[in-house]
């Protein structure tokens, strides 16, 4: 048994034999690092991408192809990022299943799904470029399911007028991450695995300040690492780990959101958090694990304890024109989309999640506090196993439920944050020169609610755009002018080690647990003014407790220490969500206020923008929505 009470300076046995290449990654380590001012391992790149999910990998590939020396830095092993959990598919109007589908229809679906709060330009670029980004994956080895004439097959999903999700069974995310990972490896891009960035450095520039580098630690050894770089692309994903019931993994602690705020960038739309309608509810240990929307896309329906398809009772005025109001029409739609309207089970996710929540509250739920998702009575076993193999496997292995024979029990689970770093739609650039964001950590694309399938395409389209611009910015600026000051590096190291300096303080796991309960109960699916005010006070109290926490053990692969550092990001992002949620006095998309139940045109025209003040407090301001050009506006009047 090893001594786990060693001093924080103990970095384990690997510290002694300084290798020239990192054992995990094969990246070269600078031998002279120790001789330099701050004494830590240092690397210089043109572009540093933080995160190795879909957006990060796509950004790195684009930056590399644009001629930049590029590094990927990620918290987990390569290939394990959250993108792997995406199941249903990549939304792209390729027209393989329905030739009448095109980017304009996709654009319109996306904007309507987001209740028109999306940045129109992002939604436009996304719809236009997604098909080519998908074909590119095929170029790099992805094996999508095919149509009968050999093209990429496309499946139905909520809120999409036509079947347009390119997919591989129900494991599309795995296919996408493996394809991008293999591409990045083939290009020889340096990857710093199990390495966490805690700070971004800035240096004076002509326009004020710009990015100059980043600071982080190797999880494996606890040793610090410094990057000198003019461009940083944040591709860190979301914030779901701040909620008790979530489909998100441990990595989703809002790192990129918090790094952006601390670097001086702004966040928008943070009040909009997506609760996916269908997460597992039983047994308790799997509560929150995602059940793909493809179950409904492939014919599955929602029923309450009385056996009723209750979604017909929850069709909002806004979607009445395009939603079937009886079971016969809804069922015909799967075969004939031209003459029938979409089943209400395939309304956008916010609508379905609220409806399920209402059924459960009205005591018409399933035995374990969900509702029933039934595909067993609607499709044959062979079809289900072929189309939804990993759902079949997941329920069989984890819940002893055979989904080809009995209904699943499901309920809403925290899945995605629409809000994120405010970026230039064309380039992914934040307001801080050299700082970019792409994927879930960026805001604006999805407005108040994201359609299923639009996430994977978002990662590809905007990862690519951010990577290209980050490379161009870097190649224009000269590395020599970048300054990373030794005293800043040393201060960053001190902050990272602070949790070791307090003895007898609270355990970080307990504080995280309390935060998750607080966010789940007070800033969840249905929100109220008084509860939101309470949540802000309680977050303040948790911040205070977090400043006095202790971690045990030493710096080598110590999850307690890692959590302690992640916690400050989770607390800051939670404060942003609660602050914006309290301010927006209406219900729209992923933000539902019990005290303001309907949408309000006044609020429909504005974004809430959050920044960090000099005193470390979150500041909020209102900002009008960017005006959509007329030719795009016409799309909303022309169609049903």
């Amino acid at each position: 048994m090893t001594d786990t009470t060693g001093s924080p300076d103990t970095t384990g046995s690997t510290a002694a034999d300084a290798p020239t290449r990192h054992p995990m990654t094969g990246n070269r380590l600078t031998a002279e690092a120790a001789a330099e001012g701050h004494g830590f391992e240092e690397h210089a790149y043109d572009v540093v991408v933080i995160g190795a999910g879909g957006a990060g990998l796509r950004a790195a590939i684009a930056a590399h192809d644009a001629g930049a020396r590029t590094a990927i830095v990620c918290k987990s092993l390569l290939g394990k990022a959250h993108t792997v959990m995406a199941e249903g598919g990549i939304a792209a109007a390729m027209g393989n299943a329905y030739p009448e589908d095109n980017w304009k229809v996709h654009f319109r679906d996306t904007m309507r799904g987001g209740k028109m709060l999306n940045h129109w330009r992002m939604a436009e670029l996304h719809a236009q470029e997604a098909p080519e980004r998908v074909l590119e994956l095929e170029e790099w080895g992805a094996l999508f399911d095919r149509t009968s004439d050999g093209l990429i097959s496309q499946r139905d999903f909520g809120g999409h007028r036509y079947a347009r999700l390119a997919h591989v069974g129900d494991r599309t995310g795995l296919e996408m991450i493996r394809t991008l990972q293999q591409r990045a490896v083939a290009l020889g891009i340096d990857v710093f695995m199990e390495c966490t960035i805690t700070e971004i450095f800035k240096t004076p520039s002509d326009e004020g300040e710009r990015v100059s580098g980043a600071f982080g630690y190797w999880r494996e050894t606890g040793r610090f690492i410094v990057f000198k770089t003019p461009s940083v692309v944040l591709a860190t994903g979301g914030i779901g780990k701040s909620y008790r019931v979530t489909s998100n993994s441990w990595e989703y602690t809002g790192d990129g959101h918090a790094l952006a705020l601390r670097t001086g960038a702004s966040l928008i739309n943070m009040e909009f958090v997506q609760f996916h309608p269908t997460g597992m509810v039983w047994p308790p240990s799997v509560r929150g694990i995602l059940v793909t929307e493809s179950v409904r896309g492939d014919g599955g329906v929602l029923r309450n304890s009385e056996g009723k398809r209750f979604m017909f009772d929850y069709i909002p005025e806004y979607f009445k024109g395009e939603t079937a109001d009886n079971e016969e029409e809804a069922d015909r739609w799967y075969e004939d989309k031209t003459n029938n309207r979409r089943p209400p089970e395939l309304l956008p996710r916010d609508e379905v999640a609220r409806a399920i929540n209402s059924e459960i509250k009205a005591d018409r739920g399933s035995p374990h506090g969900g509702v029933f998702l039934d595909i067993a009575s609607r499709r044959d076993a062979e079809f289900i196993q072929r189309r939804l193999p990993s759902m079949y496997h997941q329920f069989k292995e984890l819940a002893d439920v055979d989904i080809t024979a009995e209904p699943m029990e499901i309920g809403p689970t925290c899945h995605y944050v629409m809000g994120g770093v405010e970026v230039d739609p064309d380039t992914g650039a934040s307001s801080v020169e050299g700082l970019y964001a792409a994927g879930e950590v960026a805001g604006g694309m999805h407005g108040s609610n994201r359609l299923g399938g639009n996430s994977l395409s978002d990662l590809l389209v905007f990862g690519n755009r951010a990577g290209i611009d980050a490379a161009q910015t870097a190649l224009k600026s000269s590395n020599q002018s970048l300054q990373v000051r030794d005293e800043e590096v040393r201060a960053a190291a001190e902050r990272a080690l602070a949790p070791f300096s307090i003895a007898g303080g609270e355990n970080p796991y307990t504080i995280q647990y309390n935060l998750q309960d607080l966010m789940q109960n007070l800033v969840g699916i249905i929100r109220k003014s008084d509860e939101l005010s309470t949540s802000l006070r309680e977050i303040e109290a948790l911040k205070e407790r977090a400043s006095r926490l202790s971690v045990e053990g030493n710096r080598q692969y110590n999850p307690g220490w890692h959590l302690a550092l992640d916690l400050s990001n989770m607390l800051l992002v939670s404060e942003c969500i609660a602050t914006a949620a309290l301010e927006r006095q209406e219900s729209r998309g992923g933000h539902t206020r019990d005290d303001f139940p309907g949408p309000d045109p006044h609020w429909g025209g504005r974004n809430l923008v959050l920044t960090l003040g000099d005193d470390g407090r979150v500041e909020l301001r209102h900002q009008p929505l960017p005006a959509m050009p007329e030719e795009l506006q016409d799309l909303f009047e022309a169609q049903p």
Partner: protein
Amino acid sequence: MGYELKLRVWRGDASGGGLNEYAVQVEEGEVVLDAIHRLQATQAGDLAVRWNCKAGKCGSCSAEINGRPRLMCMTRLADFAEGDVITVTPMRSFPVIRDLVTDVSYNYEKAREVPSFAPTPRDPDGKRRMMQVDVERGQEFRKCIECFLCQNTCHVVRDHDHNKPAFAGPRFFLRYAELDMHPLDTNDRRKLSQDAAGLGMCNITKCCTEVCPEGIKITDNAIIPMKERVADRKYDPVVWLGSKIFKRGDRASREEV
């Protein structure tokens, strides 16, 4: 419902370590990873363990449970009796970093050695066509979540570190087979898979297939067909002659890499 689970967990680092005994409260329906997380949150804050999705999709939480290579997130406590002691140790074929975390860089090095996919040009309309039946074989192999349990189990390298430089392991035989069976790939990796990747060292005992959490038939569907394809290339004179005569820019005469 809940009960107190007796758990033995290997704690230590490269310099050594041993099994520590713990008692952890567990609930109905939980998996081994839940018990490990509760242990971490309440008794051993610095217990090192990898995990991400907790749903058998990312392949991070590989370990040996009572000596059997498994994913901790897919191993249900209900499969054991309440009185049983569950022993969790790190994967044995990789050097330990700390506690349950091992240095799996061997796999990432082998990944870099596989020449990448090189497709034929697109059809005139900018798309590519492949039939479902032709992509299905590769799709089975691409279900791989890179948990590396097959690599850990394979007796060619388990307790035989010296074989590692010459042996890519079952995970990468899958990859070679996937690319070889890809309808549009123009590279021929058969010689490479035999020579540099060490396909010939595999004597098809199927240990890898047995531990695959995705149920991929690694031996039957990837390794054996790949061995046959290597043999075809090497010993069939007609194939050999054909490869010398026909030099077309498509898949019919692939480029040896």
